C-alpha cells in the first residue's frame, strides 16, 4: 500500500474559497508560504491583510464577523501560542468566530502532533483542547476536505476553530 499523497496548496486554497472567506489575515509561515500564501497574494477572490503580529489578526478576524465578512487567520503555531490571550478574549470570552490555519513548523511528516519531537508542536493540540477550540489536522490530500467544515463550524458556532497544517506545503 503506497503512502497517501501530501496535501497541495491548490486544494487548500480552493477549500478556503469555497467556505466564503474574503479576507486572509496573515503573518508569513514557512510551512504554508510557498504553497498557500504566495498564491493567495495574486488571487483576486481574497483581500490579503498583512499584520505585524498574529494577535492583531485575531482581533481583525473577530471584528470582520460583525460585518458578515469571513476571514482566515493564516499563521504559524508560534504565532498561535503568542496570541492565546487575544483568542481567549475575542474568541472565547466574547464568543466570536476566529478561523485559523496554523502551520506546524517542523512537525515530522506522518507523526501525530502530540508525538512530535518538537515541544512547541506537541503542546498545540492540548492547549486548543484546554480552551475548547476544535481543531482538524490537514497533512494528506484526502484531508483537505476537513477545511471547509472547520471554517463553517467556526462561523456557525461563533467560536474559534483551528486547521493545523501538518507538513510544509
Amino acid at each position, binding site marked *: 500500500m503506497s503512502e497517501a499523497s501530501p496535501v497541495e496548496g491548490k486544494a487548500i486554497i480552493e477549500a478556503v474559497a469555497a467556505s466564503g472567506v474574503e*479576507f486572509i489575515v496573515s503573518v508569513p509561515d514557512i510551512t504554508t508560504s510557498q504553497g498557500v500564501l504566495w498564491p493567495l497574494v495574486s488571487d483576486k477572490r481574497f*483581500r490579503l*491583510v*498583512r*499584520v*505585524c*503580529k498574529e*494577535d*492583531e*489578526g*485575531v*482581533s*481583525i*478576524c*473577530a*471584528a*470582520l464577523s*460583525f*460585518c*458578515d*465578512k469571513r*476571514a482566515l487567520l493564516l499563521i504559524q503555531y508560534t504565532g498561535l501560542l503568542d496570541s492565546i*490571550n*487575544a483568542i*481567549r*478574549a*475575542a474568541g472565547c*470570552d*466574547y*464568543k*466570536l468566530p476566529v478561523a485559523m490555519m496554523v502551520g506546524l513548523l517542523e512537525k515530522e511528516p506522518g507523526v501525530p502532533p502530540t508525538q512530535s519531537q518538537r515541544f512547541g508542536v506537541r503542546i498545540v493540540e492540548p492547549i486548543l483542547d484546554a480552551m475548547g477550540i476544535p481543531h482538524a489536522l490537514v497533512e494528506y490530500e484526502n484531508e483537505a476536505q476537513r477545511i471547509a467544515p472547520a471554517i463553517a463550524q467556526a462561523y456557525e458556532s461563533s467560536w474559534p476553530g483551528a486547521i493545523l497544517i501538518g507538513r510544509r506545503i
Partner: protein
Amino acid sequence: MMRRDLAFKILARHVGDAIIVPVYQAAQEWRALRPNHALTYYSIGAMGQASSAALGLALGRPDKRVIVLDGDGSLLMNLGTLVTIASQAPKNLVHFVCENGMYEANGGHPIPGQGHVSFAGMARAAGYPSVFEFAELAQFEAQVERVLAAEGPVFADLKLVPGEPPPQDYTFIHGPEARAAFRAALKR
C-alpha cells in the same frame, strides 16, 4: 492638558453615526456620556487590541466611519498596529490615543517613556497620512471637525488627565448584551 470627559463631550457632538471602539477608562467615560450609542464596540478583553478590532470593522464596513478611543498603555502593547493600519490605509478609520501617561485601570503606574515618547511621531513614521496632537481643550474643539474629516487613517494624540470618575459598568461592557446591541445596530 485636557480633562478626558470634557474632551469626549466635545467629540461626542461630532461623531454622528460613527462606530466607536473605546477601551478601559475611556470606555467607561464614553458609556457614561453616550449610553445609547449602540454603534459602540467595547474592546476591553485583551489590552492593546482595540485598534486591530477597529481596523477589522473599518475594512468590513468601509461605508462607516470607525473611531477608536485607544489608551497610551494599550497602544504600547500593540505598536505594530500602527504599521498594519497605515499599510491597509482605511480612509474611514480615526485613531485617537488618550495619552494620560499611566496605566489608569491598573493602579496609576506610569507607562514606559512617560512624557518622552511621541505617539504622534510614531504614527507619522508608521505612515498615517493625517496626524494631530492636542493638549488644550479650546484647540481640540476648534479642530475636531477637521480631524474627523481628514483623509484616513487619521491619528490624533489627546494629552489628557482623567475626568470625573465615571460609573464602572464592566458587567454591561463585558456582557453579551453589549455585543448583541452593537451587532443589531450595525445591521440597521
